[in-house]
C-alpha cells in the first residue's frame, strides 16, 4: 500500500469518478435549463465514461500490475482502500463503454415536465455512475458498503423520478426494500469473511482462513445479497416493477450496468476472497442460474408492457450469467481449470454483451415512448415506417439478444454451451450426468429468447399501427441515434471479433481460476478447447453471409428483374383486414401460456356468447407473490404489531427503556 502516484490508471480513475460527481453537481446550477443540463452536462458525463472505459482497458493490458492505494477519506481508523486489477478493469470497461452510449442518449432524451427537475436528475444520475465505479474499485468492506448503499439510494431516487404517480412510488419502495435486504446479506457476508481478525480490507479477507462451514455461510450470504441485486429468482421481484417505473436511460443503466455490479460482487467474493469451496456451491449457483434463466424467458414471453418484457429478459440473461459462474465454481472445486476458465469467460462475455444489447433495447423503448406516448405493446405496431433509424438499430439489438449469429449474444451462448459439452468429464458419478442436461435448459432459454424478441420487435415495429395516432410518430433525435448506434456497434464488433473478447477475458480468468481459454491459431477464430473440437469465426460468418446476400441480390436482379407493384395484402383473399386482426401481444404469448400453464398464476375473464361487446381479459402473475412474499409481508406485519406494545407514545417510557438498557449493559459488563 503506497501513496498514490498521480498519473497511474488508478489515480486517473479516481479523478474521473470525481469528475462525474462534479458534472452531477454542476447540474444544480441551473436545474431547469435543458440546454445546460441535458445537452452540455450529459455529453460531458459520456466523455468521462469513455475515460473510465479507457482506464479499464489499461488494467486489462498484459503487462499491467495490480495497483492499490489508501485514500485520505473515511473514518479515522478506517480509511478507504481502492484497488485496480483485471477483474475490476473489465467491469469498469463495461461500465464506461455502455455508460457512454446511455449518457449520449440521455442527452437527447431528458426534457421538461417529467417529475424531478432535470438538474437534480443529472446529479442523481452521475452519483449513480460514480458509486458503481467505486463499488468496483473498493478494496475494503467499508468503502464497498458505502458505495453499494450510495448506488442503491441514488438509483432509488432515479426510479422515482416521477414521484407524483403512486404506482411509481410503490415500485420504488419495493426496489429499496429488496436492495436493503440484499445489502444485509452482503454486510453479514463481510462479517463472516474477516475470519475473526476484524480487518475489513479485502487483502485481510483473502488471507483469512475460514472453517469450511463458515466459508459456506459466507458464500450463501454473498449469493443471497448479490443475487438480490442482480435479480436471481426468487429475489427478482423488484425488477419487473422498478424497470418500467424508471425513465428509460435509468432503466438501461440499472439493467445494463447495475445488475452487472451485482455479478461483479459475487465474482469478487466467491472467486477472489473465498478459497476453493465444495462443489455444491457451484451446483447451487448453476441450478439457481438455470432456473432464473428459464423463468425469466417464460415470463418475458407473456408480458404486454414492453419495459416489463425487457425486465424479465434481464432476469433471463442474469440467469445465464449466473449459470456460467456456477459452472466455473463447480469446475474450480474439481480443479478443472481450463473448463472453469471457459465457463467464467462465457459468463463475463455474456455480462458485457448484455450491458450493450439490453441498454440498447431499453433506450429504444424510451424513443418509442417519446414518439408515441405508449408503453403497452397492444397499442403499438408498424413503427418501422415512422421511426426507421430506431427500428434498424433495435433490430440489431433484438437479434443480438436472441442469441443469433453473427452477433454478440451468440458468442457467449456458444461459449457457455461449449463449456457444458465438457461437463461429462467431471469426476463425480452423478454430476457428470446431471450437469450436461443444463445445456438443454440453456438452449431452450436461448430459443425462447428468440421467441420473445420476435414478439418484442414484431409487435412494436412491424405490422400495421394498432392506433391511428401512431402515424404521427417521429424518429429519434440525432443525439439519441448516436447513443443507440454506439451500443449497436458494440453488439456488432463483439460478434465479429469474439476472439479478442476471449483474449481480454483471459487476463481475468488467469488470476481467478488459474487458467486461460486457449488462443486460436489465428486472431479471427474462436477455438476454446481445441481447433478440431469446436470452432467459430464471427468474421468469416459475417463475410460469408454478406457475400451470399450480395451475390443473391445481384444475380436475381441481373438475370431477372426488380419489378414490383404495391397491392393490398392478400391474407388468403380476405379483403376486410383491420390492424386489430394482427396478433396482440397477448395473442403472441398464447402458446407460452398454454405450454407453461402451471408456472403462471392466471386470472381469466372469458366473454359469454351472448355478450354484445365481448371482453377477454387475462391477468398473468407470478406465483412467488402469493406463495412467498405476501405471506412474508403478513408475518412481518404481525410481528410488528406485537412489537408496537412497547411503543406507548410517552417520552417517559422511552427514557425508562434507555435507562433499563444501560443498567443491563452495566450489569453484563461488570
Amino acid at each position, binding site marked *: 500500500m503506497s501513496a498514490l502516484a498521480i498519473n497511474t490508471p488508478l489515480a486517473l480513475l479516481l479523478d474521473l469518478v470525481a469528475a462525474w460527481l462534479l458534472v452531477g453537481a454542476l447540474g444544480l446550477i441551473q436545474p431547469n435549463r435543458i440546454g445546460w443540463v441535458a445537452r452540455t452536462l450529459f455529453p460531458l458525463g459520456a466523455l468521462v465514461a469513455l475515460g473510465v472505459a479507457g482506464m479499464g482497458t489499461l488494467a486489462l493490458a498484459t503487462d499491467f500490475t495490480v495497483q492499490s492505494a489508501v485514500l485520505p477519506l473515511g473514518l479515522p481508523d478506517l480509511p478507504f482502500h481502492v484497488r485496480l486489477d483485471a477483474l475490476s478493469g473489465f467491469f469498469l470497461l463495461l461500465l464506461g463503454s455502455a455508460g457512454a452510449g446511455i449518457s449520449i442518449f440521455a442527452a437527447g432524451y431528458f426534457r421538461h415536465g417529467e417529475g424531478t427537475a432535470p438538474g437534480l436528475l443529472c446529479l442523481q444520475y452521475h452519483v449513480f455512475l460514480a458509486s458503481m465505479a467505486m463499488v468496483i474499485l473498493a478494496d475494503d468492506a467499508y468503502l464497498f458498503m458505502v458505495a453499494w448503499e450510495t448506488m442503491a439510494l441514488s438509483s432509488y431516487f432515479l426510479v422515482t423520478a416521477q414521484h407524483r404517480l403512486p404506482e411509481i412510488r410503490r415500485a420504488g419502495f419495493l426496489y429499496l426494500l429488496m436492495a436493503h435486504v440484499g445489502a444485509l446479506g452482503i454486510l453479514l457476508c463481510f462479517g463472516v469473511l474477516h475470519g475473526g481478525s476484524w480487518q475489513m480490507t479485502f487483502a485481510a479477507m483473502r488471507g483469512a482462513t475460514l472453517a469450511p462451514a463458515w466459508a459456506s455461510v459466507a458464500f450463501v450470504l454473498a449469493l443471497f445479497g448479490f443475487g438480490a441485486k442482480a435479480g436471481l429468482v426468487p429475489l427478482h421481484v423488484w425488477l419487473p416493477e422498478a424497470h418500467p417505473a424508471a425513465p428509460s436511460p435509468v432503466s438501461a443503466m440499472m439493467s445494463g450496468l447495475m445488475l452487472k455490479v451485482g455479478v461483479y460482487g459475487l465474482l469478487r467474493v466467491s472467486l477472489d476472497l473465498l478459497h476453493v469451496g465444495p462443489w455444491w456451491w457451484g451446483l447451487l449457483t448453476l441450478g439457481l442460474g438455470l432456473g432464473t434463466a428459464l423463468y425469466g424467458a417464460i415470463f418475458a414471453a407473456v408480458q404486454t408492457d414492453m419495459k416489463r418484457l425487457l425486465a424479465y429478459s434481464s432476469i433471463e440473461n442474469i440467469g445465464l450469467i449466473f449459470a456460467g459462474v456456477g459452472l466455473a465454481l463447480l469446475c474450480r472445486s474439481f480443479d478443472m481449470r481450463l473448463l472453469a476458465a471457459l465457463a467464467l469467460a462465457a459468463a463475463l462475455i455474456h455480462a458485457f454483451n448484455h450491458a450493450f444489447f439490453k441498454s440498447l433495447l431499453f433506450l429504444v423503448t424510451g424513443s418509442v415512448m417519446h414518439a408515441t406516448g405508449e408503453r403497452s405493446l397492444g397499442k403499438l405496431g*408498424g413503427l*418501422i415506417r415512422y421511426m426507421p433509424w430506431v427500428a434498424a438499430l433495435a433490430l440489431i439489438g433484438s*437479434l443480438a439478444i*436472441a442469441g*443469433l*449469429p453473427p452477433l454478440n449474444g*451468440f458468442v457467449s451462448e456458444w461459449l457457455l*454451451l461449449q463449456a457444458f*459439452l465438457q461437463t*461429462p468429464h467431471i469426476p463425480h458419478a452423478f454430476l457428470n*450426468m446431471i450437469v450436461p442436461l443444463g*445445456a*438443454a*435448459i440453456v*438452449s*431452450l432459454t*436461448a*430459443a*425462447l429468447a*428468440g*421467441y420473445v424478441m*420476435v414478439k418484442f*420487435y*414484431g409487435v412494436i415495429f*412491424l*405490422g*400495421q399501427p394498432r392506433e391511428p395516432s401512431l402515424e404521427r410518430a417521429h424518429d429519434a433525435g440525432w443525439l439519441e441515434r448516436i447513443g443507440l448506434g454506439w451500443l449497436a456497434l458494440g453488439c456488432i464488433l463483439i460478434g465479429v471479433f469474439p476472439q479478442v473478447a476471449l483474449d481480454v477475458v483471459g487476463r481475468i480468468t488467469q488470476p481467478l481460476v488459474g487458467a486461460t481459454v486457449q488462443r486460436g491459431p489465428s486472431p479471427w*477464430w474462436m477455438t476454446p478447447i481445441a*481447433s*478440431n*473440437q*469446436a470452432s*467459430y*469465426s464471427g468474421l*468469416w*460468418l459475417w463475410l*460469408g*453471409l454478406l457475400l*451470399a*446476400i450480395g451475390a*443473391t441480390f445481384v444475380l*436475381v436482379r441481373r438475370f*431477372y*428483374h426488380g*419489378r*414490383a*407493384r*404495391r397491392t*393490398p*395484402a*392478400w*391474407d*388468403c383473399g380476405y379483403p376486410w383486414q383491420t390492424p386489430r*386482426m*394482427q396478433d396482440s401481444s397477448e*395473442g403472441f404469448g*398464447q*402458446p407460452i401460456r*398454454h*405450454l407453461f400453464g402451471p408456472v403462471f398464476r392466471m386470472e381469466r375473464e372469458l366473454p359469454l356468447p351472448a355478450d354484445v361487446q365481448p371482453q377477454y381479459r387475462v391477468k398473468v402473475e407470478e406465483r412467488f407473490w402469493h406463495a412467498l412474499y405476501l405471506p412474508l409481508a403478513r408475518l412481518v406485519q404481525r410481528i410488528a404489531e406485537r412489537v408496537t406494545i412497547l411503543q406507548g407514545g410517552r417520552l417517559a417510557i422511552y427514557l425508562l427503556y434507555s435507562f433499563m438498557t444501560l443498567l443491563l449493559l452495566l450489569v453484563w459488563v461488570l
Partner: protein
Amino acid sequence: MTAVAYAWQVGECLLAIALAPLFAGWVGQCRAWLQNRSAPPLWQPYRVLRKLFHKDAALATHASWLFRAAPYVVFSTMVVAAAIIPSVTTDLPLARVADAIALVGVFATGRVFISLAAMDVGTAFGSMGARREMMIGFLAEPALLMVLFCAFMTYGSTALPSVVEGALSQHAVVLHPSLFFAGVAFVMVLLAENARLPVDNPSTHLELTMIHEAMILEYSARHLALLEWASWLKLFNYACIGFALFLPWGIAVHGAGIGLLALAIGALLVKLVIAGAALALFETLSAKLRLFRAPEFLTMAFLFAVLGLLVYLLLGV
C-alpha cells in the same frame, strides 16, 4: 492444395444449391406415388422457380424494407450453412467457420428473419404463423442440441468434419447404440424444423393448420422463389447434417483424390434417394398432429436424445 480445397468449397456449395430442388422434387414424386397420384416430373421445382422468378413481385401496401430483405437473408443463411456442412468432402477450408452448434444458430437466424417478415405485413395469418414457427423452433432446439451432445460424446467434437473423420477412421462399421437413439431424435427434429408431417404439412393451404405456409402467404414472385428455394435447401442441409452424423460412409476425407470425390458425390446421391423415399413414406404414414401435440412430439425427441446420452455415459458405447 488450398486452391483445390477452396474450389471444392465453392463447388460443394453450388452442388447443394443445385441439388436441393431436385431432392424436394424427388420427395414430392415419392409422395405422389405412395398416395396413388400421378407424380409431377422430378424437375418440377425448377419449373416453379423459373416461373416465380419471371413474375412481377406483388408487395403488400404495408410491407417495409424488412419484408423485401428477408428472402435474401433467409436464402443466404441456408447457402452459408450448405457451404459449412461436409456433404461431399471434409476437406473444406471454411467448414470450421461454424461447428454444429453454430450451425443451429445460423438456422435460427433464418427462422427469426422469416418470422419477422411474416409479421411485417400485419395480417392475421402472418403473425399466427410466426408465433407457431417460433414455438416449434424453441421446442426443437434443446432436442437438437442433445443430439449434437451425443455425437460430441462419441467422436469428441462438435465440428462436423471432425465427426465424419472420426467415424470413418474406425475401420469396421460400428453402430453406436447411443447414436441410434440420437438418430431417431434427429429425424423427429428434422421433420419439425422443416415443416413436414406430422408437425406441419408442406402442401397445405388450410388456413388454421398451416405454419410455414402462413408465414410466406404474402410473398410472391422472386421473393417467394427465394423462400421456397431456401426451404428446400434447409431440408437438404438437414439431410446432409444427418448423413454427416449418422451415415458418414462415402464422404471423402482430407486428401482424397478426384476418384474418391466422384464416388462421394455418388454416395451422396444414393443417400439422398433413400432418405427422400423414406421421408415420403413416413409422411404418407403419419397424420398431422394438432398444434399442441407438437410439444409432445418434440419432447419425445428430446427424451430420445437424452436416452442416447445416458446410454453413452452409463454403458460407454
